[in-house]
């Protein structure tokens, strides 16, 4: 049996374990051991600010995705099967469109001469085009769009397991629908909330294409710090240290969350 997994395992070891190990090594070794790269990451302003910005954006994206995703998952769960399949298909549909294609679509929609600005001007709502893209706003709009399915699917999966009789029991005991929701349904859906939020937050931490194309160079997320240090400045040690800190954050979050729900539950729903 081990012989059967070994080719796949070899690919994983050579192309992800070794490269990440290499990064870790490179971050502490350059003609001798050094912690200089980490000192820079933790003390220099550009690095510090980029990490703070990345966490802020990820938090905002996660909260927005939860606020938008919860009602959709709730509705898909409440409606008869045909409708819920339709809703879930619409949620998953963008999933199968390349991230690059969607970045292009958001540029076309949000730019100064884009669809939304033209529409608003046509309707005389605004006289000057709004700055909707090449900033943090555009990045957040497009990032939420990409990550929303990762929120809705675990939410829906969890809601599906909540027995409908519980709500009826609540109602028969005299609770109003909103009270039953708050006291019964909402608490039972929390594992899904946690799974969805973890996935969205962690994926957002490492986002690269969207902030690079829609952030207008001002929204420098950690991933861009890594790529710039490699491509523009040839600062391999610094890039490696940033990558290691980012990976450590991701693994810490997974480890913390796995105390409450199983990792399978977070990763299981692709």
């Amino acid at each position: 049996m081990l012989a059967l997994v070994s080719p796949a395992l070899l690919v994983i070891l050579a192309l992800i374990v070794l490269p990440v190990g290499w990064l870790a090594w490179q971050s502490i070794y350059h003609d001798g051991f050094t912690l200089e790269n980490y000192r820079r990451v933790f003390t220099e302003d550009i690095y510090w600010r980029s990490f703070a910005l990345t966490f802020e954006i990820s938090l905002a994206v996660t909260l927005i995705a939860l606020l938008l995703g919860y009602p959709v998952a709730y509705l898909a769960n409440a409606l008869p099967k045909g409708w819920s399949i339709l809703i879930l298909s619409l949620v998953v549909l963008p999933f199968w469109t390349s991230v690059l294609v969607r970045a292009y679509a958001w540029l076309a929609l949000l730019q100064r001469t884009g669809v939304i600005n033209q529409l608003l001007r046509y309707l005389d709502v605004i006289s000057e085009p709004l700055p909707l893209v090449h900033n943090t706003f555009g990045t957040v709009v497009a990032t939420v769009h990409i990550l929303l399915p990762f929120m809705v699917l675990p939410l829906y999966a969890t809601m599906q397991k909540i027995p409908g009789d519980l709500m009826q029991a609540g109602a028969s005991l005299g609770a109003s629908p909103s009270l039953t929701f708050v006291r019964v349904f909402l608490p039972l859906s929390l594992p899904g909330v946690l799974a969805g939020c973890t996935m969205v937050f962690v994926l957002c931490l490492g986002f690269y294409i969207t902030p690079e194309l829609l952030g207008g160079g001002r929204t420098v997320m950690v991933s861009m710090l890594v790529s710039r240090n490699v491509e523009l400045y040839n600062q391999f040690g610094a890039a490696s240290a940033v990558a290691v800190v980012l990976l450590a954050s991701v693994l810490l979050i997974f480890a913390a969350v796995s105390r409450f729900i199983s990792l399978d539950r977070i990763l299981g729903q692709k």
Partner: protein
Amino acid sequence: MTRVSPARIALYVISTLVLVYLILPVLIIAPISFSSARFLTFPPPSFSLRWYQQYFANPAWMQATRVTLTVALLTVVIATPLGVAAAYAISQSKLRIMRVIHMALLLPLVVPIIITAVGIFFVYAKVGLVATLPGLVLANVMLGLPYVVISVLAGLQSFDPAQEMVARSLGMNRLRSFFAVTLPQIKSSVVAGGIFAFISAMDETIVALFISGGQYQPLTKRMFTALRDEIDPTIAAISTLMTAASFMLVLLASARQKKSG
């Protein structure tokens, strides 16, 4: 229908708006690609295929398309058997280390892709695989493996291993019994896994940005570079074609999965 509460109405309105938000960007690209104008205007000036002509007439785009298709096909051909073998072993073996190996095979989904990309770039730079076709294929095999493993493991869950035991007791060896008994029953999930690996390779951008170059640049890398500079509707034409290809493949995969039920 019972009484419609305001909360219920709000639920419908919000959900509809969210669904529009999800679908709008996917729907907006096709009209841009068929418009004669450089920028999207209301109403679209006239129907035109000029952006498609520009795409098909441009040798650089065509070369990139060939690279993308070659890489995606080779990725499927390599990742599918590796993933099937691994998933089979994981589901059959009782060894404790298999749990760890299972997790390891899902690593590409856990490690932020930018980190993977930079790491692979450093390793490839040492061994001379940067800007080569094998380098690009290998990286995509690694990224596609989890999809095959997840899909096939799900397929194997509903498969009764006792059937294979029967075949073996009747004198087939393990390999033959796998091909004769097991594989036909999990065929749909194998095909679905392969299709997901293909789509993953077709859409992969970040690793390609770091490790591809010269004549072996996939479509996504060229698109990314073009998008950084200006908004060229040729990209809308390419995007429309890519999206159509993805959707057709997904429909194929889900039809397959449904058949296996």
